[in-house]
């Protein structure tokens, strides 16, 4: 923990950077009111990881997959479980209170292998954008390192699930030459359909079908 505090760098004057604006990230322009500190960002991440972890637990238990698909989706589920554990422990270490797992409703997501994979693909891409959008609010360099490390793994998941679905490489497996950030509001709106009605969010039941 003897590393230079990342926050120190935020005092650096930034010239007009055309190239940065060309990149699709909105990291630099995120709403300053989105998060109040590292624990707040971690609890946001934890909520998403809880959602993913439970999603794969139910999906993998449904017996829809076999072969490589089964192996990969089980590995992804194990990664999400590891993320939940690591983030919960970090919040405790920082003296914060971890949020509880939200009540979820994945609707018809587990009606078929395809529906399971399609919903997984949406979750993973949303997770990638959520981490990118929240990273700028993290001040502790060790937490930033861990969040970046999780972000990369979510990108791996997203790409592999996109490929299992046989999607077009660009726009399906890959989302362009750079990842895109989403604000907290955008992410919460995207996952709202999977939060059960009794969790105080929007009514559940929606799934990515077709």
């Amino acid at each position, binding site marked *: 923990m003897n590393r230079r505090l990342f926050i120190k760098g935020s005092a650096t004057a930034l010239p007009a950077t055309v190239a940065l604006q060309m990149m699709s990230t909105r990291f630099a322009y995120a709403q300053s009111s989105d998060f109040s500190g590292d624990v707040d960002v971690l609890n946001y991440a934890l909520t998403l990881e809880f959602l993913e972890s439970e999603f794969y637990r139910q999906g993998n238990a449904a017996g829809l997959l076999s072969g490589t698909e089964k192996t990969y989706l089980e590995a992804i589920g194990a990664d999400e479980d590891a993320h939940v554990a690591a983030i919960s422990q970090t919040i405790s270490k920082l003296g914060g209170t971890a949020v509880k797992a939200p009540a979820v409703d994945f609707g018809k997501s587990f009606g078929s292998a395809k529906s399971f994979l399609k919903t997984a693909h949406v979750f993973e891409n949303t997770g990638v954008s959520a981490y990118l959008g929240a990273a700028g609010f993290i001040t502790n360099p060790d937490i930033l390192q861990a969040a970046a490390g999780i972000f990369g793994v979510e990108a791996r998941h997203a790409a592999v699930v996109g490929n299992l679905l046989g999607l077009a490489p660009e726009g399906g*497996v890959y989302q362009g030459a750079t*990842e895109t950030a989403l604000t907290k509001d955008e992410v919460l709106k995207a996952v709202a359909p999977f939060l059960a009605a009794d969790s105080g969010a929007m009514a559940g039941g929606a799934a990515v079908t077709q």
Partner: protein
Amino acid sequence: MENNQIFDGQPVIEFDKESDRRNFIKWAGVVGVGSTLVAGGLGKQWASAQEDSDIGILNYALTLEYLEADFYTRGLDADILSGRDQELVSPIKAHEQAHVSTLSQTITDLGGEPVKKPGFKYPGATFKSKDGFLKTASVFEELGVTAYHGQVTKIKNPDLLAAAASIAGVESRHAAILAGLTGGNPFPAPVEKTAAMAEVLKAAKPYLK
């Protein structure tokens, strides 16, 4: 990241020949490492000296992106892929080229000078077969991922961190897809690993002309 993966199983020997030492100095010049530190070898002090500068980090990333862009251009020109393999690898070349442009422009915007594209060389068999190409690609992508993640806490400017992260995520996608295509594990760890600049440059050194 096992260095011997990238050396065809040969152990890495530092400067056992004068030509090797010159090669390293060339690399060091590419990323702007001071000559006194080069004389001191590939020690940690060398890495940290360079990592103190955002422009230095961007030029380091640019060097790796130049290597990747050149590698995919040659590999795809060799016309050894077909079907889904080709579909999945073709956009990777475009991404690496876009990363080269973006990093170069960003360095210029920040008042720095982007490194020039180095000359590259590859073992003779690299582009002779699909396996040779894709396995080397897989090693490069995993190396790139650990390289970016190794700089996360070193970058001072938060906007640059965002830019670098948005590129690093794409390298993770590439790494996972190539692992899958080559029978490797797309998900080697729940959190991406890191590698220091010195370690990465040592692994990339044999590819510099």
